[in-house]
């Protein structure tokens, strides 16, 4: 008893004199309110306002909750006009203001500043000069900077998405490979073909795309440089030629070939086109994706009786099964930090959904509820996924945060939209 007493006294004395330390281990982690004030100055004819584009970017990320324009108490366009109390009173922790000034050569001088209302500090103050054609690029650049300043993670708003659009023309099906901004805007056709196109895959420098085209009547793997449209046929072996995936260093391509009998995974040296077979199993092995460090691949195999995801170590060719939940797991992608696996998942008797598995905890979370979701692909900063789904006659791309808490759909395209792949960061 005496000991307890003394101990208590000591503790109390200790608390009083030395440092009281309170540990904060949890957070609210809700989407952050931010005020994006309409930029001052003119904008190119027919363009959206910079603030509109930035607002939409930040909102789509799921991490921000931009204040509706009509709720803005005031509309400053430069830091000199900012009074913190006006923003504190509406509980907005972040504030972005800026303006665009036309220059004599027709370009725009865009300045923007980001403030932390709570810390009463300017976090960013930058400028960029762009032509009218790069107006949206400037907005996405601002979004990237804001996102990084607040979250500590590089923004991926200036990236692209490629996908295959299957549409009808003159009563016939056609296929086109398209590339759009990460917000679905400014779609551009890379290839238009009367025959199916499948499995587009970005080179790590984001300048080339590999894909499977049936234009010759048989599947073949092509590599196309986006800017020059120059194309090269890389593989057209007997049987299946499918699922190309670029290695992180850009020197190799993993692919599925059935030239030796049943579908197996091979690695091709892009420069020499030398092939190495890396799986050897009577079951189907396909859909390879590289581990971020290039040391191995993940792939889909039905060697266990149902399709599941496996990991292959390229050095010793050892294989380890990664997924155990559900009757089907396929078409996996791995996050850039190697922690999360995303895949098309199906429980017995259910529809196909997108699921994320945390490879640290092995917990699998189903993150979409729409029917027939397919082909998930990580954003280069690992915070989001793009996947394809269908709505009636229209196909669309869905974007979801990795925890599934936030989801949006990009503009619909007539016909099917399939096989999206999110680009790496653009250099």
């Amino acid at each position: 008893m005496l000991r307890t007493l003394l101990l208590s006294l000591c503790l109390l004395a200790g608390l009083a004199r030395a440092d009281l330390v309170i540990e904060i281990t949890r957070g609210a982690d809700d989407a952050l309110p931010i005020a994006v004030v309409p930029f001052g100055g003119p904008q190119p004819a027919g363009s959206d306002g910079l603030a509109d584009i930035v607002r939409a970017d930040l909102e789509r990320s799921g991490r921000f909750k931009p204040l509706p324009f009509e709720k803005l108490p005031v509309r400053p366009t430069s830091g000199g006009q900012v009074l913190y109390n006006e923003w504190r009173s509406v509980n907005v922790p972040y504030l972005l203001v800026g303006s665009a000034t036309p220059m004599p050569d027709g370009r725009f001088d865009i300045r923007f500043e980001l403030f932390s209302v709570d810390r009463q500090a300017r976090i960013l103050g930058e400028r960029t000069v762009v032509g009218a054609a790069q107006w949206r690029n400037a907005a996405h650049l601002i979004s990237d900077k804001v996102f990084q300043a607040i979250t500590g993670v590089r923004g991926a708003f200036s990236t692209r998405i490629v996908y295959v659009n299957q549409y009808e023309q003159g009563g016939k099906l056609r296929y086109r490979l398209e590339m759009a901004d990460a917000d679905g805007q400014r779609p551009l056709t890379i290839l238009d073909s009367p025959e199916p196109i499948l499995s587009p895959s970005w080179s790590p420098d984001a300048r080339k795309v590999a894909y499977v085209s049936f234009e010759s009547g048989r599947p073949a793997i092509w590599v196309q440089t986006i800017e020059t449209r120059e194309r090269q046929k890389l593989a057209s072996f007997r049987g299946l030629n499918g699922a190309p995936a670029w290695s992180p260093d850009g020197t190799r391509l993993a692919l599925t070939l059935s030239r030796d009998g049943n579908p197996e995974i091979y690695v091709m040296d892009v420069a020499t086109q030398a092939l190495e077979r890396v799986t050897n199993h009577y079951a189907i092995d396909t859909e390879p994706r590289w581990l971020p460090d290039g040391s191995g691949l993940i792939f889909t195999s039905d060697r266990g009786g149902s399709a599941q995801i496996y990991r292959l170590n390229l050095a010793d060719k050892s294989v380890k099964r990664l997924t155990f939940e559900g009757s089907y797991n396929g078409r996996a992608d791995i996050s850039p930090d190697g922690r999360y696996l995303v895949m098309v998942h199906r429980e017995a008797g259910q529809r196909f959904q997108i699921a994320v598995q945390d490879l640290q905890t092995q917990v699998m979370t189903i993150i979409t509820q729409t029917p027939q979701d397919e082909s998930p692909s990580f954003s280069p900063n690992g915070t989001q996924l793009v996947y394809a789904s269908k709505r009636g006659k229209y196909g669309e791309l869905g974007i979801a945060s990795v925890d599934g808490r936030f989801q949006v759909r990009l503009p619909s395209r007539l016909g099917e939209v399939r096989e999206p792949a999110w680009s790496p960061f653009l250099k």
Partner: protein
Amino acid sequence: MLHADARPAPVLETRRALNRSLVLHVLVLGLVAGLPYLHRPPEVKEPPAIQAVLVPKAVVQRHEPTPPKPVEPTPAPPPEPPKVELPPPVMEPPKIALPKPKPEKPVEKPVAKEEPKITKPLLKKPLLNTASFDAEMDAMRKEVQQHERQAELDRIKQEMDKQATAMKVSANQALVASYIGKIKSRVETKWNRPLSARAGMSTLLRISLLPGGEVGNVVVATTSGNAAFDASAVEAVRRASPLPVPDDVTAFSQSFRNFTLKFSPEDL
């Protein structure tokens, strides 16, 4: 920083101390209450006539089962009031009238303490009525016993004083602990951890509060190495202002005028 690990300790310690003091209280009370009971042989001579007391039925029912044990050592102190009423009706013999008051106010420790003294004489007197030698011997014995009893009482009193101090200390501790909990949960609801936050990161902030809990200075004492993470911690504290703090100025000054907040996510 040194006390980073000590945080959970005060809470635990407080609880343990409280538990122990509770146990001790029950023990002491039981002891005090039990003493007279041990020395109550006089009950032997019960005047049967008086047992037919006229009492409202309800009361009788209540008393009847308990007569032999006026004081129950087991139950905790607070619920005792009903029991206190029990002894009087049953133990009506005049001699026993004295000891009775003791159970009356079990809540008041000092009162309870004095009673045992009175019980003692009762014990002896009825038995003696012969030689004066015997009487003297008895007186001496009584005195010795009284001394012993007194020593025993002093010891109990000391123990209880100690308990009282301990209670006070742990009450203070409990107060501090409760505000630690309040501050913690308030800051946690205001902390929006950036996407780049990972388990294992840790930022230490030195916080100065004004009386009333308004946040004054916030200084990053130890950086996590991630600017967004540090900033999110500072913003959480600013957003949480004013923090809940004790009204008591001493308690505030001792613990909350300056302290450290350690931001270290566990679940990311």
